[in-house]
């Protein structure tokens, strides 16, 4: 189907406009406002879907398609590139699909879940602002614009984390979140300024083409990766994540999962596109070793070590939690580790052949595909678990696992959804987590068997943790205080059902996802020359 070339701009503009219309419509009627917000995000999802259809169908036949949109001018890209551009390739639209699924589910779930709260006009406004910030981060092709969207995302999500201002803990978590994200964003801006000072450009493609890998570029790379990995919740910079995830309302937590993944996308974009050319090149700048060391390999191993730390810390901390949401939050840290494990393996898989030229190991691609595939699986699995935690809070008004029990008697659908979520997040066969985790195990095993063993063991521990939760919350004797507990309202069940259906679908047919969506996304990320050619016409 033909869609206008300003579709990427619409994806950001529709929620932004909707955000400021929401309070006005909220004055008329509460129900009308809820319908309006669902409608806005529905329209947005349809645009994302159409754009995705366009990009993926053309990318399978022949060269990958990259959709560019130049703001406020002619659509031809002229040199020097001064205008803000949106550069949408398969990877960007893949992330946008995840974000729109999560946000759409969040607003449906909010209908019943947030009903008893006041100030819902502001809540929905912030959700829509968060939507436009996240989608903007994923679609933009301009470094400074990326910073602006990063800040929009941070401000709106910090305000949402602190939405329950009557609880001191949520306000504190919100403050922690805004502090961490502001510092991260300021370092991103500093790195952008360093790059701008050297190359006089802000466009990612132009920068990628011009970058020399000087000392200042290394500083900028470190600043960018550190700041964005902090926002993605990689150990040792994960300290804000369990607090904000567990103190925010469940709906906000699911939206925050999307915001975290948007930062992860930033890391991918910077490592593979912005520094993509330079990281491939052998640099003998490390004189003291005086050997052929690949920069890519070093960064790869660094990422792998951090990823393994995330997995171990996340799982170990999850084992000893008694707070339902905090436990899931630590499991989410571990899941982030799995994604970075895939990415790190790809970076570290580059080697030399006998004639001293660079070769790419076959398993590197599998690792990257596994990592990218795991992004969508993690978003859905962790999202579903948080929604179930929200449902339990809705009925029992309690987070503590010690005081729960026997809920399966009264909440049978929620129990089924939790079982699906727990099996999926632990990577059990009929669900989606299995496919991506298997790819990660397979490829890391070829790089170093110990990595795969640690990853598998931690996955089993995640299963153990969640089985414990399942037992203490849903099984056991019926508690007298939960005698009157009823199943949650239909809108919440519907929202959880959407995610559960997608999980089962991906779990049963992982090949459809892998070949049509994940593989083009991985290809778009690694094929840097194609990206430059399509965006600014450099070969």
């Amino acid at each position, binding site marked *: 189907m033909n869609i206008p070339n300003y579709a990427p701009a619409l994806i950001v503009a529709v929620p932004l406009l909707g955000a400021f219309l929401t309070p006005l419509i909220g004055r008329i009627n509460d129900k009308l406002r809820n319908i309006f917000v669902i409608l806005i995000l529905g329209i947005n999802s349809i645009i994302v879907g159409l754009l995705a259809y366009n990009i993926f169908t053309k990318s399978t036949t022949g060269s990958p398609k990259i959709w560019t949109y130049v703001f406020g001018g002619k659509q031809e890209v002229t040199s020097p590139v001064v205008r803000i551009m949106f550069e949408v390739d398969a990877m960007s639209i893949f992330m946008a699909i995840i974000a729109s699924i999560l946000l759409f589910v969040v607003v449906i779930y909010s209908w019943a879940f947030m009903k008893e709260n006041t100030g819902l006009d502001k809540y929905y406004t912030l959700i829509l602002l968060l939507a436009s910030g996240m989608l903007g981060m994923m679609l933009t092709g301009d470094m400074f614009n990326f910073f602006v969207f990063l*800040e929009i995302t941070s401000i709106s999500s*910090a305000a949402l984390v602190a939405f329950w201002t009557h609880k001191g803990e949520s*306000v504190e978590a919100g*403050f922690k979140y805004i502090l961490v994200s502001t510092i991260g964003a300021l370092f991103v801006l500093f790195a952008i*300024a360093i790059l701008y000072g050297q190359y006089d450009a802000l466009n990612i493609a132009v920068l990628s083409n011009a970058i020399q890998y000087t000392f200042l570029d290394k500083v900028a790379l470190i600043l960018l990766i550190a700041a964005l990995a902090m926002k993605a919740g990689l150990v040792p910079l994960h300290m804000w994540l369990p607090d904000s995830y567990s103190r925010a309302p469940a709906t906000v937590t699911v939206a925050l999962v999307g915001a975290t993944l948007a930062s992860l996308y930033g890391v991918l974009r910077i490592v593979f596109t912005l520094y993509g050319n330079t990281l491939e090149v052998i640099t003998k700048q490390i004189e003291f070793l005086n050997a052929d060391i690949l920069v890519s390999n070093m960064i790869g191993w660094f990422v792998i070590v951090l990823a393994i730390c995330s997995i171990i810390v996340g799982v170990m901390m999850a084992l000893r939690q008694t707070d339902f949401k905090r436990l899931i939050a630590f499991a989410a840290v571990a899941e982030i580790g799995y994604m970075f494990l895939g990415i790190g393996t790809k970076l570290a898989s580059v080697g030399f052949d006998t004639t001293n030229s660079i070769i790419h190991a076959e398993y590197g691609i599998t690792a990257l595909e596994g990592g990218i595939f795991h992004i969508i699986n993690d978003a859905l699995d962790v999202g579903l678990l948080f929604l179930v935690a929200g449902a339990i809070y809705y009925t029992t008004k309690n987070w503590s696992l010690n005081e729960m029990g026997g809920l399966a008697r009264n909440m049978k659908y929620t129990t089924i959804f939790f079982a699906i979520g727990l099996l999926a997040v632990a990577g059990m066969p009929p669900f989606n987590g299995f496919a991506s985790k298997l790819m990660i195990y397979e490829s890391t095993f070829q790089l170093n068997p110990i990595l795969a063993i640690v990853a598998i063991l931690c996955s089993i521990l995640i299963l153990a943790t969640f089985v414990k939760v399942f037992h203490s919350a849903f099984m056991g004797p019926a508690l007298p205080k939960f005698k009157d507990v009823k199943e949650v309202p239909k809108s919440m069940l519907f929202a959880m059902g959407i995610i559960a259906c997608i999980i089962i679908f991906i779990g049963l047919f992982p090949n459809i996802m892998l070949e049509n969506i994940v593989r083009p996304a991985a290809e778009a990320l690694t094929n840097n020359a194609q990206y430059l050619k399509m965006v600014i016409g450099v070969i």
Partner: protein
Amino acid sequence: MIYNIPYIAVVCLILVGLYALIFKRNLIKMIIGVTLIESGVNLFLITLGYRKGSIAPIYTNSPGGIMALPVPQALTLTSIVIGVAVLALMLSLVIHIYRHYGTLDVKKVGRLKE
């Protein structure tokens, strides 16, 4: 040397800001640290676009000569506006924290939470 002074100031501002963030226990002082880092980054951006003896970049009203690069100035303006929003949000959260805990000491707030 004299032209490097702004860059030295940038480094000093960022380091002072980081010091305040890491070692100060008062929430307001931590916020001051964040704003100091922000000023440092903004100063860095502005300095990048300035050349010796350049004038304001108004093309239609230019007497000739070198003009300062306007792009970093536009970036700085955007960054300042974002900074104001962040500052307002942080201060309002601090007000809420003070209402709940009656203190602005980070360690005491953490202890009361348990």
